[in-house]
């Protein structure tokens, strides 16, 4: 196969260059997707893309080079580029080519394959038909898409470590656009799965969510008790997960630096990073450096138990790598990231949480985290939409307000948690999950 050929070319070139410590990381992805508009498939796409990253240690420094051209000459050139790039590095961080973990988890022996193009087309079409059938106000702009992706990874290094992983996922998303008079509203929903039964709930969910937003008004600025829907709170975890990176902590870019063992959150807060979470569509058995992944409690009863480490930061801190040195794509440098990073469920149903709020705001739509939240400072000010909570019940919809605060303060202020964790859409090997979260006395800016 292709990887074996390229590996041999790289090993030969590395030998010629006198390299003793190097690693080859190969990733190949295949995907297929179908999009609909009105009542037909309007776009169908398939792709195959693969690339190789070669990295090597020269005089204690790590040099990287990568590319997609799979020829022996390209491999030779890649080794030369990596060697020359290593010579510019002046970081004192210790570089590692990993010797291997004592053992690695094994994935269940189920064949990972790309969904058939016909299944993908049928799923997209059925979703779209069901969307239009759900409500007469569903109109132009409504789209349904189905997709499937398979990713294969091979890691080989000069210590003889040889690992591979093949993962895949199928799913669908729907975007309902509804119009009522002058007003237009939309809602986006995603579900994982290849069988239509797993996706069948999407149209009603999307349509109802868009309908619920109709006629949304403005809210007065002020302090409110806020219930965040889990589907939105997980986005806070996504933005602020950078603060859990040991690299950021060591560089003074995280306010969690030096806080391991300290109370950083309310006692009801438990966060677990689990690369092998049972229901996760994509599981990782090893990280981008070849270290075995492991489940760990990051926050336990409000106490920060560990940051996330790769080999270099772990060595610096005198601890073991937590197996979080990931590569987002074949070309990415190793960078610390979580796997299934989830705030654990609490004890209350959503209705009970509405009652606990009494009078306040329920937020189920947040936008612009990349701009409105800063992982270094913890500050956030986020465009939101949701509902008024009145007398313990969900009341009229509201829009165009911001919720502002500081994430690290918010962690300590969490009052109670919902009893169901809602997981997001996986990006590479990372996905975030959270239950509904009640926080008292948040700043809301509206009219």
């Amino acid at each position, binding site marked *: 196969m292709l990887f074996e050929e390229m590996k041999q070319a790289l090993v030969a070139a590395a030998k010629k260059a006198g390299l003793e410590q190097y690693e080859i990381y190969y990733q190949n992805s295949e995907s297929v997707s179908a999009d609909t508009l009105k009542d*037909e498939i*309007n*776009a*169908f*796409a*398939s*792709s*195959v*893309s*693969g*690339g190789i990253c070669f990295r090597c240690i020269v005089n204690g420094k790590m*040099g*990287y*080079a*990568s*590319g*997609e*051209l*799979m020829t022996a000459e390209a491999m030779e050139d890649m080794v030369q580029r990596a060697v*020359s*790039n*290593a*010579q*510019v*590095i*002046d*970081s*004192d*961080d210790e570089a590692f080519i990993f010797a291997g973990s004592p053992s690695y988890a094994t994935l269940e022996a189920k064949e990972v394959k790309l969904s058939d193009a016909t299944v993908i087309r049928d799923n997209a079409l059925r979703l779209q038909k069901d969307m239009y059938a759900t409500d007469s106000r569903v109109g*132009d*702009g409504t*789209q349904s898409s189905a997709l499937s992706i398979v990713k294969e990874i091979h890691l080989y290094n000069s210590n003889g470590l040889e690992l591979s992983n093949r993962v895949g996922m199928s799913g669908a998303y729907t975007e309902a*656009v509804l119009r009522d008079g002058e007003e*237009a509203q*939309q809602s986006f929903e995603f579900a994982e799965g290849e069988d239509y039964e797993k996706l069948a709930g999407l149209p009603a969910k999307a349509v109802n969510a868009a309908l619920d937003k109709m006629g949304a008004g403005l809210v007065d*600025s002020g302090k409110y008790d806020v219930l965040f829907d889990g589907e939105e709170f997980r986005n806070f975890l996504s933005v602020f997960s950078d603060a859990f990176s040991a690299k950021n902590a060591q*560089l*003074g*870019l995280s*306010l969690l630096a030096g806080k391991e063992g300290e109370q950083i959150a309310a006692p009801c807060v438990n966060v677990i990073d689990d690369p092998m979470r049972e229901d996760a569509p994509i599981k990782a058995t090893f990280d981008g450096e070849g270290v075995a992944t492991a489940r760990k409690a990051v926050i336990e009863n409000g106490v920060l138990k560990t940051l996330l480490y790769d080999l270099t930061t772990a060595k610096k801190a005198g601890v073991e790598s937590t197996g979080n040195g990931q590569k987002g794509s074949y*070309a990415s440098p190793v960078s610390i990231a979580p796997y299934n990073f989830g705030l654990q469920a609490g004890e209350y149903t959503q209705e009970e949480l509405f009652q606990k709020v009494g009078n306040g705001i329920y937020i189920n739509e947040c*936008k*612009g985290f990349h*701009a*409105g939240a*800063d992982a*270094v*400072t913890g500050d956030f*000010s*986020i*465009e939101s939409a949701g509902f008024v909570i009145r007398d313990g019940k969900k009341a009229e919809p509201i*829009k*165009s*307000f*911001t*919720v*502002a605060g500081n994430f690290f303060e918010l962690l300590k202020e969490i009052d109670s948690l919902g009893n169901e964790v809602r997981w997001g859409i996986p990006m590479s090997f990372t996905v975030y999950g959270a239950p509904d979260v009640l926080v008292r006395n948040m*700043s*809301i*800016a509206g009219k």
Partner: protein
Amino acid sequence: MISRALAEEVLTCAMTGGADFVELYGEITRNNSVQMVDGKIDRVSDNLISGVGIRAFLDTKTVFASTSDTSRDGLIKCARAVAAAMGEMRTVEHIRLTERMFPNIHPVKVMTTDVDAKIRADLLRAGCFAAKEYDPAISQVNGTLLGVDHTIWVANTEGLYTSDRHVRTRMAIASVASAAGVNQSGFNGPGAGMGLEFFDTVDPAAIGREASRCAMVNLKADYCPAGTMTVAIENGFGGVIFHEACGHSLEATSVSIGASQMAGKLGQQIANPKVTAIDDGTIAGAWGSVNIDDEGTPTQRNVLIENGILKNYMIDRLGSRRMGMPMTGNARRQSYTFEATSRMTNTFIANGPDKNEDIIASMENGLYCRKMGGGSVNPLTGAFNFSVAEGYIVRNGKICEPVRGASLVGTGSEILQNIDMVGQNLERAQGMCGSASGSVPTDVGQPLIRVSSITVGGR
């Protein structure tokens, strides 16, 4: 990369599924970046992207396939996949291509990606060290010097065979200022559609100092109060307001399927008469400029809004078919794995009639946003948000104390009417815009403007 003969063969093969048009896009891109953190060169990334994307049209239906296997076999396999997904096999005439050359209006002197990494590292050091030395409270500095050399080939069944080379250089520096357990950040990231000669026009040390200045202002700032107020937004990256609030809603991607608040509004007064907005992909050496777009259409200067009246949209080939309007040279894609769609290039509000000093003097109570961060928008409802990277309270026509953590939210149609003063110091700034066809370089820009009323998120 792809000879004319091979392109003819591939296009002919892809047509056998019954398409009425097929386009072949190929690219070789060298992405080269040096990163510095904590005073040390930490990473050098050096990636060579190569692949092709083939897209077939039948009316407004599309089939797209892409592959990183650029061998003849790989291309033919990809073309067959397109044909098979389009429909029943039939025989077609051999496609004939004619090579076409477009003038290069963005000549490059020194290819950044070819320069020894040591020289690039020295430039970055100059920027990062200046940022660190700005103030003892600057606790961390993070910098990147990026060089991109992007060559594209476009061939289509209308007979076009052409190529173009897009070169970009950018230095981005992020500074963190710390005091008493509080971190505040500042960012500055200028770039251009130029080679290393970009640094003849901008001093790396000045880039770094500006990032640190912003971080220091924020360190001394209190939280911004929340509420509805009059806001003045400074030039340069302040233009992100137009980019988010209006630009995305003028892209054919959403307009052509009726998913934009701006659909069907050509010729209507959609903004205050002081507002004229332009998308111009032809500005020499600009970050968002290209000679031809990713469908092979030459870029142009499009007046989108003139004196408040909606004049045009940004339209790619598929949008053109759906809308029955001409293409505008706005088809863009991050790479061969994405299908091109309508995107912005260099988009800005033109200079207006008001003197800058009058704008500030006119504000009794409000917020002056000297620097904006990023933002996002929902094109359907026009609801947008963006963050204020450096803001000050305005009291009695005077700029007073700095405030931090503010964001602006509203809807596009509202804010366009509420831009009631437009100043005269137009300047552009650089960003990466993420949307359906991936992340592409765009310039935003404007002179100082006043928004009579907008919701400011703070606490």
